[in-house]
């Protein structure tokens, strides 16, 4: 084994059910590593959502709440208000956060809830088998846009993180990707900054991950990573959109 590669202590050891080449697993690892490095596992509460990641609580050895589809940020609000000393994060897909849960996430940011949101944008509904997501890019084929997303009838891909960053309650907002090691490292830094933002009580923090769904994109894993880089990044530019001072 190469130096530094070990299973995060926060992994339960249960085998993950994700498809080969799915990047949900990489994102789980980044979150686990940062929680471990910050030494906050005994004060962290995770709020899972409905989507392929619904079993995240099986994999990360943390207190967890399973929330209804789209409602994770409202549930997290209830938790954080009841336990202001804890670190609270949600883990939500693009259908969950950017379609059915739009009202909840916008107002969570508006209130500046001191929680951290991990938003997994794979441009598709994974769990239900590949339907259009609000983040499906123009022209992308899904089972409900069989001829490609026609923006004149199905609308345009939604850029949630930019939109949330405009809110005063949002203290940290970044979009990252996990399609290659360099980007994975940058993504980890964003996870860390988001948690630090929360720890310092600065406001709402969100990290959007561009993530691959080879199964529903209908591609082998390697092609999926390439497709992500070439097609998703132009629609969803990477970078830190908002960063508070003093958070490194």
């Amino acid at each position, binding site marked *: 084994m190469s130096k530094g590669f070990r299973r995060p202590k926060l992994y339960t050891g249960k085998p993950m059910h994700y498809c080969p080449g799915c990047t949900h697993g990489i994102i789980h690892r980044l979150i686990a590593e940062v929680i471990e490095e910050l030494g906050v*596992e*005994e*004060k*962290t*509460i995770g*709020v899972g959502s409905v989507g392929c990641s*619904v079993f995240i*609580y099986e994999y990360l*050895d*943390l*207190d*967890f*709440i*399973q*929330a*209804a589809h789209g*409602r994770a940020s*409202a*549930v*997290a*609000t*209830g*938790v*954080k*208000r*009841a*336990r202001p000393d*804890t*670190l609270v994060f949600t883990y939500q897909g693009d259908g969950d956060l950017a379609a059915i849960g739009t*009202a*909840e996430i*916008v*107002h969570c940011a508006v*209130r500046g809830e001191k929680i951290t949101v991990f938003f997994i944008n794979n441009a598709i509904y994974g769990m239900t088998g590949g339907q259009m997501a609000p983040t499906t890019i123009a022209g992308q084929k899904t089972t409900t846009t069989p001829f490609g997303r026609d923006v004149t009838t199905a609308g345009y891909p939604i850029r949630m993180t930019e939109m949330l960053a405009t809110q005063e309650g949002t203290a940290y907002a970044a979009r990252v990707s996990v399609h290659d090691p360099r980007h994975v490292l940058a993504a980890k830094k964003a996870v860390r900054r988001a948690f630090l933002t929360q720890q310092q009580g600065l406001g709402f923090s969100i990290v959007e991950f561009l993530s691959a769904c080879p199964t529903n994109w209908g591609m082998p894993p390697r092609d999926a990573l390439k497709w992500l880089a070439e097609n998703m990044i132009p629609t969803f530019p990477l970078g830190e959109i908002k960063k508070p001072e003093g958070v490194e």
Partner: protein
Amino acid sequence: MEKVLMKGNEAIGEAAVQAGCRFFFGYPITPQTELPEYMARRLPEVGGCFLQAESEIGAINMVYGAASCGERVMTSSSGPGISLKQEGISYLAGAELPCVIVNIMRGGPGLGNIGAAQADYLQAVKGGGHGDYRLLVLAPASVQELYDLTITAFDLADTYRNPVMILGDGILGQMMEPVVFRPAAEIKKPAGEKEWAVTGRKGGRPARLISSLHIVPENLEKHVNKLMEKYRRIEEKEKRWEEYHTADAEVLLVAYGTSARIAKGAVDRLRREGLAVGLFRPITLWPFPAAELAAVAENCRQVLVVEMSAGQMVEDVRLALGGKLPVHFYGRTGGMLPDLNYLVQLVRELIKGGGGGE
């Protein structure tokens, strides 16, 4: 004991605070808005948190979060907002989270109106949301009872790890009556952290999970069976009702909440005329005091159900009585109230054998 004059909605809020509720998530809707307004003033005084959510969906999910932490928590609304909460209520019941949900009923369906009504009975007692679950449903009939039953609601929620609904109506919520508070020492509160609550894995204890998901069919069936077993225990222990002049009643009125107050007025008038009329008032709508009602009705000739609906509780009354005696119905809808004079006349005619009422 000193009496305090209070509005119904405010009495609920004060009772919640006295019962140790420190979290309230709500959204304005008439005729319950005095309750969130009261909590917005009152909770900061006791170090609690009031939050006006973006919607009733947001509010009920915030309840889910705070209840997951083991806190006593409340939300309130009326018809349209309660409909929006149904998804969350099903999740709360599935995850066995204690909380108190107040529905100060107004006229429906749809936007209906803001008048007092009792047309959400079936939604409250038969489910409302998806799946096999039950809420405990309490039906107060006075401001004092709103206060008392709110405290009871928090106890029941914690005892059974189940959401409890207080089903009031616009008249109860808005009217003012004197209330006697209970001494603080007599109000039970949970001691310490609930052993299932998520708090962060303090001291390295094993992780806890709050969830209503059981992906394996065998496991979900087992979970549902466990809920059913809990509901059976609740049915055995928690039925509450009031009997008023029932011992020799020839005609038995059955009504709850504001309808029961009107029915009581009718009983008093008819008793003064020497007519044998009584009232059975369910206080728990679920569990419904079915056997108790059947026992009281044993020596009656006819039953008359009075509701501010087109006929909802009457279904449970008919089930309880199993066709043994005629069950008549008098209901008003749309924010209209049962008319006392009409009701009195109706009972006189029933006694004369003039029938009617159906």
